[in-house]
């Protein structure tokens, strides 16, 4: 008997007369809110999760192994397919790794165009994250608002490369073709319109009382924990760590443009909660328009049309070496590690995917939260299963 009087206890645990059985629930691989084919086996006591185990690998396609058997140019379309919401960024990451290994020069115009595409793709990706997060929390309308602007970005991409999702626009040594006439003006127009629309999102979802109640103090990840789990990208910055590869290790011409790195400040609750991670993405979209504008101006000012491909042999053969390039994907650090052996294919290709690293935390985050919070947490990490499984 303890201080609790007549209540039977073992240690400090109260032993109840009525024991309820925990329920094991299989969330996924076919579940509306796992953003693909993620499977989380949840043990729940009523609505409270007691343990959770994520299982991945349902759409594993051996992308890295394929990278060792096809030529460098042929692998570019495969990079589109791991993080299919940020295909431009994947193209750029892989091509930069190849260029680093092969010492290829990229003409400035191609670099500026790559930066514009990278930032526009970041907006498109974050818009989808914003929309699906709304759906996860039961608000359907923001999704379609997000799609309205994303549609514009996709048609901008369609104009430069003919594809709307799988671009394969960036190639080792440059980009596939130059931008059409008037494309830069349309990009600038998009930036202006987008900033106005962004205020609507802010009012509709970000500052919505119910939305804040659902996301503040939910899924709090302290900075140390975020670092320990290898988090990168908006998730890490949501936990208050100012680490953005564009700023920390500037690649391309990111050192020549000015932008802020938004970090979570615990504005609505605790630093590192779902709202912070969400809001970092929202603010990043504004920064992306800012970068895009500067890139367009620099590209028009400094470069001549047509100079988009460097001096690259028709079939690229790289002398034995190795190279690692990490770039800031919308979801975090996307790293490509290439080992070459003098042939036209890589000897070894390793991809470090941000979603795969970010998702590993689920097992530690979910216990103790409610089922509805699990959906909010998975949504706030913003995973793309294509890239988790590759």
């Amino acid at each position, binding site marked *: 008997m303890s201080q609790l009087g007549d209540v039977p206890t073992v240690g400090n645990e109260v032993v109840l007369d009525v024991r309820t059985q925990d329920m094991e629930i299989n969330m996924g691989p076919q579940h*509306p809110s796992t953003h693909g084919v993620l499977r989380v086996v949840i043990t729940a006591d009523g*609505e409270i999760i007691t343990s959770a185990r994520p299982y991945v690998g349902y759409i594993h396609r051996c992308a890295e192994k394929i990278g060792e058997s096809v030529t460098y140019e042929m692998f570019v379309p495969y990079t589109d397919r791991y993080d299919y919401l940020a295909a431009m960024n994947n193209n750029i990451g892989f091509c930069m790794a190849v260029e680093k290994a092969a010492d290829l020069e990229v003409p400035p115009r191609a670099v500026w165009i790559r930066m514009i595409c990278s930032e526009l793709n970041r907006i498109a990706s974050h818009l989808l994250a914003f929309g699906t997060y709304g759906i996860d929390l039961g*608000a359907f*309308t923001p999704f379609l*608002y997000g799609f309205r602007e994303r549609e514009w970005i996709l048609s901008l991409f369609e104009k430069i490369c003919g594809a709307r999702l799988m671009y394969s626009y960036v190639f080792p040594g440059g980009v596939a073709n130059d931008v059409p006439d008037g494309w830069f003006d349309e990009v600038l127009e998009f930036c202006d319109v987008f900033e106005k629309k962004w205020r609507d999102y802010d009012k509709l979802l970000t500052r*919505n009382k119910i939305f804040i*109640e659902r996301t503040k103090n939910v899924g709090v990840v302290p900075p140390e924990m975020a670092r320990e789990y290898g988090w990168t990208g908006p998730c890490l910055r949501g936990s208050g760590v100012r680490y953005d590869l564009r700023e920390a290790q500037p690649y391309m011409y990111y050192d020549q443009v000015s932008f802020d790195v938004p970090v979570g400040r615990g504005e609505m609750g605790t630093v590192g909660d779902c709202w912070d991670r969400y809001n970092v993405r929202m603010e990043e979209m504004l920064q992306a328009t800012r970068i895009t504008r500067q890139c367009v101006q620099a590209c028009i000012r400094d470069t001549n049309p047509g100079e988009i491909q460097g001096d690259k042999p028709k079939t690229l053969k790289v002398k034995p070496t190795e190279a690692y390039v990490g770039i800031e994907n919308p979801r975090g650090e996307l790293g490509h590690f290439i080992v070459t052996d003098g042939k036209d294919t890589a000897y070894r290709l390793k991809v470090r995917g941000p979603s795969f690293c970010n998702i590993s935390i689920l097992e530690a985050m979910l216990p103790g939260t409610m089922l509805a919070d699990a*959906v909010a947490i998975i949504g706030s990490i913003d995973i793309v299963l294509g890239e988790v499984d590759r």
Partner: protein
Amino acid sequence: MSFGLVPLIAALNVRAAEVAQAGDAGESALRGLFGGSPWAAIPSAIVGFILIFAVAGGLPVILVWAERRGAGRIQQRPGPNRVGPFGLFQTIADGFKLMVKEDIIPARASRALFMLAPGIVLAGVLGAFAMLPLSKNAILVDTDLGVFLIFALLSLGVIGVVIAGWASNNKWSILGAMREAAQMVSYEIPLGICVLVAVMHYGTLNLREMCAMQAGGFAGIENWLICQYIPFGAITFVIMYVALLANTKRAPFDLPEAESELVSGFHTEYSGIRFSFFFLEEYAAMFLVSGVIVCTHLGGWNLPFVSGEFMTGSLVGQILSALVVITKALFLVWVMIWVRWTLPRIRIDQVMNLCYKYLTPISFVCLLAVTLWKPFWGWLGLM
């Protein structure tokens, strides 16, 4: 289709309850048609059942169309616009599709209960329609129990939902059913208290009499409950509306079927015609509860600046009053649609917090205020 009989039985029971009160003349047009003897209960119940089924089956066609078109407007897309004028027949096409679809019962489901559940859910709502007055004589069952019976029948729905969730043998379904049970039982407290305020004010449980008592006064709206006991009448209206949103499982209280969390909640395993029963029930219930709150708080069939005698006296007035009740109810339904496509969903503990920490205490305060209203002003010598 054995469960098709359930609404009929419910309607008969309702009718029998009314007949039991011998001597009460009542104002129902049906009673006028068939006479007041107990034997008239059977034909009038059958006619009533057919009427209810026509109304409650036809209304969702309009409401689903309104919901989808409204959602389309809100989301900057056209919505259904191909089948019939303005896409009006889209719902009929969908309903037909649901009817001819294969009726799947999961192998390990509890067959009988699985088949029964949609019937119970629908029966409650259809039965409750009998007590909703559209005008002075357009009421199927004019009984003293009125609003009490409506909420009693509506809470049949929770039993149906729990049975559906359990019988499906699906973990997501049972979670949805448990949420529904917790939510419904909780929100009936503030709802009941708000209804109690109305009942205290009018001194009757009969919705038709409540409507009649709201006629006249300043600008024709002074006697509406929402304008009485300023501001407590209006507060009870808001609380009652929120509680009814929760009772009809509408967003932001759509947790029992939260599609992003529980796949489809309690009706995950249902398909075809049985699924359409849940669908029908939701829209019929939306209209029904809106009609009830119109009768208790928003003046029923009364219009501003129009005398109550005109609305109840002539045939033109009665037709007009039916239109008024339907319009007011449709407006409230539209607000529900509007809310659904704007707000995110609340979490279950927040649903409970809202009910027990805010709505219930505030509704008790309203009850107390309305109780003490006349003695207090009388004590001050102002009334």
